[in-house]
């Protein structure tokens, strides 16, 4: 059971969606995340930077078939924070 903890950093709409999209997968490519969120590269980069600074998201750059692909994944700390935030939201709705 995750620790209930409202997290202001995750709560921003786009960052919440980023965490929700990253939670069920091991990693997601930057371009795929852009498409799924419907935001521009620069907007996504800004949100990712905040999450990386908080140690919630890990960025992994790999070269495949001659092009660089940026893979994003939730860190264990990020997974814990996201689960705790969702629990906090449920608690607020329930209470």
């Amino acid at each position, binding site marked *: 059971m995750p620790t209930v*903890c*409202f*997290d*202001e*950093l*995750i*709560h921003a*709409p786009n960052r*919440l*969606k980023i965490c*929700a*999209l990253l*939670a*069920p*997968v*091991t*990693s*997601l*490519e*930057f*371009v*795929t*995340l852009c498409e*799924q969120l419907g935001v521009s590269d620069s907007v996504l980069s800004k949100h990712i930077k905040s999450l990386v600074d*908080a140690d919630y998201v890990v960025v992994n750059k790999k070269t495949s078939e001659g092009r660089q*692909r940026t*893979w994003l994944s939730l860190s264990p700390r990020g997974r814990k*924070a996201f689960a705790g935030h*969702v629990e*906090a*939201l*449920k608690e*607020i*709705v329930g*209470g």
Partner: protein
Amino acid sequence: MNKIDHPITADDARAALESVATANNTAMNSMRPPLWLILLCSAALGIKTAAMGLMINNALWNSIQWGSYIVCCLCVAAWIVALRTKGITIKIIDVNITKTAIISALLICTLLVSSQVIYLQTGSLLFPFIAGTLNTLILAYGLYFGLRWNAKEKEKN
């Protein structure tokens, strides 16, 4: 650190949870194998199950059994490669270890073994085909709805 004393209203929290659920649905839909792959993999497993029973002293059914086994493995590999091409990587084990998934896997294995055992004991050709059909249905249903069930089950735990 990021905690605040007076968070949001219940309506805001509800809207945030809805947004999480929508994003989760999007992720689940993008991770689900395409329908043709689900049908091909399920049919291959069904054929393998039936062939497991019928292969006793029959080289043709033995070859069919191995052929369908290879098709099953290729389907899983194709799914993982297709996901990677789409920009998604998953850990199969992380995604699938839930109570329902374990029960489904055990049921599939039981049908695979019993297809052969019951055929050997009774000599009836019917049971391998019934077991094959059941395995096809279980796997097709599991591959189509499994990711969503597992996510819900993990959420409950």
